[in-house]
């Protein structure tokens, strides 16, 4: 059996770990609240842009845009949103697993797809598995501004415009609630399903387009696609902090359990030592009589 001192030092170190994990839990909780706020702040923008895009797309008679049209798929792009660091439970592995399954299922060769990674974990996974990476960004911070992700968003949209990729999927953890996140795969490009969302809009008038619909679409659609990417990243960030909070909470709980168990053992060992001493003393006394 371990000595008293060994057990004591284990208890102390576990206590220290518990302090750290509970601090991290609180940090994640506040980050999650902030991320939720960011998502809310972004909502009016995304709603409005969706409304206008839907309206133009549904009313446009002769205006067309490559982003609205399906074309033969030669190469698929996957945008994967992961965290930069671990300690977030199954957050990263869930996404990467789903990505890997998708690729296994759909593609025969590496020529058929490419990956855009956001976050270090996704990048490292693709490097390790030797998957093709078209773009990557690492270290976008906990509360990304639009300016931080503008470049990768527009470069990704550009990949589609240049016909490097013919469709684009985005994989991220959708924030359902603080304790539940869901791996979500959305088809981003070509934009096909805008009409679905548009039924609640209240358009009664026809718009004038200045200078014309075609040019508006050229400005609007890339901006729309970028806003969808930004929205997914915000959603992913909120999930990341929520996952990290849950992971840290269970780590704190486990540390507490371990401390209880160790304390019990410690007391038992201590008691055993005392009993033994008493037995030895009384044995010694008996021998003297």
């Amino acid at each position, binding site marked *: 059996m371990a000595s008293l001192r060994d057990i004591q030092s284990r208890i102390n170190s576990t206590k220290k770990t518990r302090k750290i994990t509970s601090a991290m839990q609180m940090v994640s909780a506040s980050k999650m609240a902030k991320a939720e706020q960011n998502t809310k702040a972004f909502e009016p923008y995304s709603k409005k842009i969706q409304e206008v895009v839907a309206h133009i797309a549904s009313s446009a008679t002769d205006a067309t845009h490559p982003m609205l049209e399906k074309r033969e798929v030669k190469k698929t792009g996957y945008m994967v949103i992961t965290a930069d660091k671990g300690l977030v439970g199954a957050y990263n592995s869930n996404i990467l697993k789903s990505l890997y399954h998708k690729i296994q299922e759909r593609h025969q060769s590496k020529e058929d797809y490419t990956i855009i990674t956001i976050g270090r974990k996704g990048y490292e996974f693709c490097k390790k598995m030797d998957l093709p990476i078209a773009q990557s960004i690492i270290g976008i911070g906990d509360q990304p501004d639009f300016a931080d992700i503008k470049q990768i968003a527009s470069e990704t949209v550009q990949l589609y415009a240049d016909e490097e990729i013919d469709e684009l999927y985005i994989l991220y953890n959708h924030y359902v609630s603080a304790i539940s996140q869901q791996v979500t795969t959305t088809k981003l490009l070509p934009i096909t399903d805008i009409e679905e969302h548009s039924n609640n809009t209240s358009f009664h008038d026809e718009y004038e387009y200045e200078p014309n619909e075609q040019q508006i679409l050229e400005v609007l659609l890339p*901006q729309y696609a970028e806003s969808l990417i930004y929205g997914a990243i915000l959603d992913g960030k909120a999930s990341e902090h929520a996952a990290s909070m849950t992971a840290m909470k269970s780590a704190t709980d486990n540390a507490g359990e371990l401390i209880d168990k160790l304390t019990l053992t410690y007391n038992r060992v201590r008691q055993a030592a005392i009993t033994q001493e008493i037995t030895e003393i009384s044995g010694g006394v008996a021998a003297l009589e």
Partner: protein
Amino acid sequence: MKTLTVSVVTPDGPVLEDDYEMVSCKAESGELGILPGHIPLVAPLSINAVRLKRGNTEDKLAVNGGFMEVRPDKVTILAQSAEKPSDIDIERAKQAKERAERRLQSRQDHIDMLRAELALRRALNRLNVSSISR
């Protein structure tokens, strides 16, 4: 005097929502002035100042591209960034301007000229807006 509601939204959140009598801005195709009761309109904006008039006062915003949606009683500006004069970091804009100018002057192939030019226009726009209002 009739007014129209102006709201400016960016991905980082709403910047402004208020009633004004007139909105003047620069669209891609030229200067536009919007008064209450304008016909519904959608127009892309260039990187420039948006001027909002109410009575004798005039507010300015540095708007970085995006587009505007006009309805008879409401103007919505959707831009990737928009700043009030008080929110503009002048030092940073100055630095950005110098950096962009240096890049444009160096005329090297590996520098993306278009991007440097856009950066210069954004910086000039910010400086312009912040200086007029003081």
